[in-house]
């Protein structure tokens, strides 16, 4: 049985084999569910030419936590696929924006629901789908649309990934994951879209059989590696972010 082998002793070991050119999805929406420890380990590991997929590239708030923009600053990223390359408010400046606007990194800007559905499709064996989102906008220019029941829809393709980095609240040795509250967000979708899933876990890993099967959010068949997050300061835990000056 390979179940025991899902437990990995360190974040460094969990990301050691990530090759240059890997396509990696990062869970999380704001702080909850963001795999800060795995991102930090990837910064040290140094793989380059990465494609990074996440809702945002991070860095909009203080204190700054490990984020995709740090991987960009570290010269590790070729392309980002996300729903923000700039902040919602023009007065906020994301660390990533200057690299993108200067042409030092590529970006594919995707509406958030389309990003979620492209990941879901990849994990569901669906190669493409039509959505009403972004019809009539700059994003749809030159792309295939089709009318169903009198309304125009835009063709979008599944987004399979090599690796997914997740953060879960609880796991068992079989790799079954539970998220807590808004930690769930993109994590279950990225797990299913990925060939290799690495999860950082907040609570002690339970033995197989200790988790109620009805309460599993991501089944262990999708999860290859688990790392228990140590207490701070060795492990990274979210803190309440500072309010922005307006």
């Amino acid at each position, binding site marked *: 049985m390979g179940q025991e082998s899902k437990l990995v002793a360190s974040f460094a070991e969990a990301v050691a084999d990530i090759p240059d050119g890997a396509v990696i999805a990062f869970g999380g*929406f704001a*702080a*909850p569910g963001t795999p800060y420890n795995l991102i930090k380990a990837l910064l040290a590991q140094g793989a380059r030419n990465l494609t990074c997929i996440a809702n945002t590239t991070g860095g909009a708030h203080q204190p700054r936590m490990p984020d995709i923009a740090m991987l960009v600053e570290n010269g590790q990223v070729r392309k980002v696929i996300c729903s923000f390359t*700039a902040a919602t408010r023009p007065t906020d400046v994301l660390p990533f924006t200057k690299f993108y606007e200067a042409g030092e990194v590529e970006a594919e800007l995707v509406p*958030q629901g389309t990003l*979620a559905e492209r990941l879901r499709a990849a994990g569901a064996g669906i190669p493409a789908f039509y959505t009403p989102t*972004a019809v009539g906008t700059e994003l749809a220019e030159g792309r295939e649309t089709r009318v169903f029941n009198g309304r125009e829809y835009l063709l979008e393709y599944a987004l399979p990934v090599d690796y997914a980095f997740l953060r879960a609240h609880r796991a068992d040795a079989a790799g079954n994951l539970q998220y807590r509250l808004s930690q*769930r*967000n993109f994590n279950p979708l990225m797990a299913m879209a990925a060939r290799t899933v690495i999860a950082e876990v907040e609570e002690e890993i339970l033995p197989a059989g200790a988790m109620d099967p009805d309460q599993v959010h991501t089944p262990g068949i999708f999860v290859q590696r688990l790392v228990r997050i140590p207490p701070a300061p060795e492990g990274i835990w979210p803190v*309440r972010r500072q309010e922005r000056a307006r």
Partner: protein
Amino acid sequence: MSDRMGWSRQQMADRLAREFQDGWIVNLGVGIPTLCSNTDIGDRQVIYHAENGVIGYGPVLPEGQEDLHLVNAGGQNVSLNPGAAIVHHADSFAIIRSGRIDVTVMGAYEVSCTGDFANWKVAGAKGGGIGGAMDLAAGAKRVFIILEHTTRKGEPRLVRRCALPVTARGVVTLVATNYGLFEPAGEGFRLRELAPGITRDMAQAATGAPLIG
């Protein structure tokens, strides 16, 4: 801004929130739209939906009382109201695209009298911030917009055609500005209410399309 006239930001939000009906599922954008949740709408109850899969969130919690596993779409540490539920991102946007959101309230740079609006990309930028705006605009039953009536240079934000890249076309049903309440009506904006101290002539002079009604 000292020369700002008419409604305050909270008053703009209040005016739109008073349109909310009992039982509506409401999605509030980041920034001024968030202020709609402060409005007293009597005994009507609405359910707040956030893009990150939180259905039924409540007020932002003070420091020390927050749960760091729970944020709304603006990343604020909120509470949950009785009856709340959590779903993943694909289900959250399934709720949006399938028309379950009764109203979304968003900020914008421009709104046209044909119901187009622009809120994801500023002039001259290569990228922008879309977030859930395009999905919400395409899927919600109603799209309400809150914005200042003019730019800092005094140029109209209510226009015949958006100059900036649009978020969606033909979807905006109601607009609150510091000058009043307006409805995109095809050839122009239907004037529903004026804020205190604002005359129709003042509003027309600051609007890039005809005022109707």
